[in-house]
């Protein structure tokens, strides 16, 4: 009888495949949350359709560089769909993982809980990009909204916005003791940030004090920057720094505070 032994794969490859497996599983789990998926993608699209059917919104205006109020509203809806994911969805999942002992269980495996967090956030980024594509495509095909004239800048700022929001989401997951509280905090922060992003009142129409506050919030900075790229301009560096500051700041604090069990 011959015994064949399969040599173990080198640790790096094994680890990479573990991370890939974890990410794929997290992605599957995200997609299986049908209700949240439908709301997260559907709500911004419904808003898009409502605003798209108001004629006054679609009149080109000189103040927006020949674009209409509707065109300017697209970045708000993009940040809205991203914020729904990163602030009301991701923290609930992660706090739930901790509450249910899932992170602690993974702590006893070679994968370790950090890799699970990375996988979860990776899956969320993929889903976030899909959400943005849906909004852009519906706007483009349904309402002839042109793609951002500074498209490279648009892509960069969308990614930065996703990272900044996920950092805030991770922070909420770190401080919330359970899923319910994570949801409560997430939703509160979501609506606060969406106000400053101009969901109810466009930023240029805000009193100057609110405009200043708005520019200092992640979504205010994101919306302004995305509008700039729509108009074909590179956003000012301040926007870039604001988003990076939120990503790094909240990311580091979250990493320090995050408990596994």
């Amino acid at each position, binding site marked *: 009888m011959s015994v064949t032994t399969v040599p173990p*794969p080198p640790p790096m490859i*094994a680890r990479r*495949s573990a991370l890939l*497996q974890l990410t794929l599983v997290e992605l*599957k*789990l995200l997609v299986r949350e049908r209700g949240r998926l439908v709301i997260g993608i559907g709500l911004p699209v419904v808003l898009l359709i409502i605003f798209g059917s108001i004629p006054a919104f679609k009149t080109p205006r000189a103040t927006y560089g020949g674009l209409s109020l509707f065109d300017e509203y697209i970045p708000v809806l993009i940040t809205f769909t991203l914020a729904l994911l990163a602030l009301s969805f991701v923290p609930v999942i992660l706090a739930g993982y901790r509450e*249910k*002992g899932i992170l602690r269980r993974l702590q*006893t495996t*070679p994968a370790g809980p950090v890799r699970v967090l990375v996988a979860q956030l990776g899956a969320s980024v993929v889903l976030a990009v899909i959400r943005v594509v849906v909004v852009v495509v519906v706007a483009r095909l349904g309402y002839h909204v042109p793609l951002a004239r500074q498209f490279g800048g648009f892509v960069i700022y969308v990614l930065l916005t996703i990272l900044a929001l996920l950092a805030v989401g991770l922070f909420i997951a770190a401080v919330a003791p359970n899923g319910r509280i994570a949801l409560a905090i997430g939703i509160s922060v979501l609506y606060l940030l969406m106000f400053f992003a101009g969901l109810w009142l466009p930023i240029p129409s805000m009193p100057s004090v609110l405009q200043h506050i708005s520019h200092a919030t992640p979504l205010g900075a994101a919306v302004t920057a995305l509008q700039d790229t729509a108009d074909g301009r590179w956003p000012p560096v301040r926007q870039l720094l604001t988003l990076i500051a939120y990503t790094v700041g909240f990311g580091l604090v979250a990493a320090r505070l995050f408990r596994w069990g």
Partner: protein
Amino acid sequence: MPAVIEVRHLHKSYEGKVAVDDVSLTVEEGEIFGILGPNGAGKTTTVECIEGLRAPDRGEISVLGLDPRRDRAELTQRLGVQLQQAELPDRLRVGEALKLYSSLYRRPADWRELMETLGLADKSNTSFSKLSGGQKQRLSIALALVGSPQVAVLDELTTGLDPQARQDTWKLIEGVRARGVTILLVTHFMEEAERLCDRVALIDAGRVVVTGTPAALAEQVQEEQRIQFRLSVPLDHALLSSLPEVASVSQSGDLVLVTGNGDALSAVMSVLARNQIVARQLRVEQANLEDAYLALTGNSGAGRNPDAEQNSAAEQSVDED
């Protein structure tokens, strides 16, 4: 051969409250070793230190020659763990969970075969949230074994299971041991320890009270033998109570209850025989592990129904038991 698990003078406190005072124990290769004790005794803290989830304040722990904190990467490859109350994502399916966990290990077991062995094959596509308590427990055992560990630590293996599922799980664990896996079992369920464990350590208030085989522990409290029988003819109690082996004699109707030490039975029987008295419906209550447990910990809460135990919230929060 060096011990598989060696714990020496482990001490762990949380915010000034002592969870584990001084615990030492040794688990040999291939045995099922039980950690017994009431809630809040420090059982879970002890195994969490062994698993490397908690850093001991004092003391030394070696698992397969490894330090659970320093050698985490290597230890997690070789130590399978079933945690108390660890769930999985609701929508994760049984087959996916096993496949995922097997991908985390260097030399995983065949997860399909494991799924078959644990009777979960027909649940492969079922979400975790749709599983029964027994199925969840079997899945968590499967996940503890999917990395083909040399040692498995199982915390509260059958708590919350119905009697049938409990019996099935015990058979399963015996099968796991037969494959050469060393098992550390945390339980407060005496029947489980008696059935499965080669040796047990009884922990109370953060200290090991006694270590030994379940039978040896029971023998330590053997003096508490109780003999019960019905009389065919009246009996003078003095005949029995004068025996040095007998502690007390009492009677209600024709039912006599004699308590005494381990030799009381033969002494009582010979007295009855000499007097030509027939003892009907003779029952001897031998001390078992549960009696030993009760005698040695002075705890009346443990025993038949592990789910009914409720300790104070303060105690639970210290030990997370």
